[in-house]
């Protein structure tokens, strides 16, 4: 009998802790129209985001500004900027929220840069084929 009471008490406790399925923030998995959506207060409905691409300088590099180009994975150019290799820096631009990878080109160096949240990092250093070294 004691166990039955305990089980009932536990059941009530769990039920009282469950989120109200009709309250804000609770996801409705069977949405048939817009008004059935459960949308968090914080959602801004944006399909784009501002990305910050951080640039890591090259030691003892020239101070001559030159062209850096950022493209998305479909080849669309998102930004062109004159930048210097001898300085840390960052550039901001708007891209679709779905953006996870950027293609960044500076002279002979082209790299894929991963975007984590709104941040990516590019370091100018070329990826060399070291097969000429022994």
């Amino acid at each position: 009998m004691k166990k039955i009471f305990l089980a009932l008490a536990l059941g009530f406790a769990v039920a009282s802790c469950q989120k109200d399925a009709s309250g804000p923030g609770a996801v409705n998995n069977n949405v048939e129209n817009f008004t059935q959506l459960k949308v968090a207060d914080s959602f801004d409905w944006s399909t784009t985001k501002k990305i910050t691409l951080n640039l890591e300088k090259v030691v003892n590099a020239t101070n001559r500004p030159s062209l850096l180009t950022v493209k998305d994975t479909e080849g669309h150019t998102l930004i062109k900027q004159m930048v210097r290799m001898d300085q840390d820096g960052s550039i901001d631009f708007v891209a679709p929220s779905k953006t996870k990878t950027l293609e960044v080109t500076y002279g002979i160096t082209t790299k894929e840069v991963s975007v984590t949240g709104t941040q990516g990092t590019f370091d100018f250093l070329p990826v060399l084929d070291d097969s000429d070294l022994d």
Partner: protein
Amino acid sequence: MKKISYITALLALTLTGAKAQFSENFDAYNNRNPLVANCWEFWGTDVKSNDKINGAKSTRSGQATSMTNKKQVRTPYLDIQAGATVTFTHKISRYRSQDTRILDVVLVDTDGNESSPIYTHTYSSGSVVTASFNVGTTGIYRVAMQHYGSGGQGRGHIDDLVITNATYASDPGNNCLPVVSNPDADNDGVADNQDEYPNDPARAFNTFSNGGTYGTVAFEDLWPSQGDYDFNDLIVDYRLQYISNASNEVVEIKAKYYVRAVGAGVINGFGMEFPSIPVASVSNVSGGVLSDNYISLSGNGAEAGQTNLVVIPFDNVEGVINRVGGAFYNTEAGTQEGISDTVNMTISLSTGATLAEASDLNPFLIKDRVRGQEIHLADHAPTDLANTALFGTMDDDSNIGSGRYYKTENNFPWAIMLPQKFEYPTEKTDIVTAHTKFASWAQSVGASFADWYTDQTGYRTPSNLY
């Protein structure tokens, strides 16, 4: 001590007004990559501490045991002036008298042609040798130090290179081409082959919103009442061309607007605020299609009475669309498609903006041609001319104090903006049934299906789209 002598030499040059010099001691690098980024070339050679000559690092070639496969280090292109001299130290490791080891120094011109050696040393020991010689010519060259030989084993090493009367003349962001090969007609610092306005010093680059594809703004126009969520009451495609100068400042914006659908019962207008561009930074705006006399413009063509730049592409949508009959324009399936004029606007800035500032967009619908009735994207503030007395009425749950705008109590919006052309629902079709991943996107706070609007298998119900 090595660093101090370099600084002293540099200081002495500065104080005496002597011509610039190019120098490198290789100490700052873990490998050759940073130097390659800076337009050096390494052929079978790296930067290492092994058998270094001086300081922390020297160059270290592979086995220089071929007379033809020369291991070499080439400087970036340098502008070599009259009286230029070259000084450096070099050696061969694992020297044996029965082997042949040679170092040549040659100049490489801008076409890649090598000169005959301007310095040659045939090693007779493994000791460090100091090379010092005149270049003997002027022009744009790489200086190439080449180790080669035959027999046994032996690596070449170079250190403490100083070239007087020479300046750096490569362009690392332009495939390391010599700067003389890249004329800059407008002298703005951007080589002609990268300058999209090579004869205009005020302009250098074009960048487009959404990478050059049209984006879309889609509205529900019953605000402050909730709508039917077909998001086709006004569909405006837009593309902005940002023209920036060599200092990365946007100096001009060319905007195109195209009305793709009007599923509305009232006649609306359309505006776009640039919240990060003060109107005082704008010298001229042109191209809006205004006919109904409820929009006032300032002398610069921007909307009057605004703190930030606001442009009005059209004040009456009927002035830019060409209907082919029917109450709605391009929202009912099976009806003949109407076309819109493209509204071309040009915005000239007197004070440049960053691209991020110029990309900060706040589009809005002007409901029923009543200037104060603005409908914006969720959490986008109204302009100075909006009638905020409408906030909090009907279904609107805006709260100016908390920065909450144009949302219902359930956080529903009246407008959405897409980074590509939006395939919108037909008249009175709920967007949730047309774009099948929309609900998951919204309920996950954007974490799932951020690409809900794209054309992927299972993402759309084609019969519910116009």
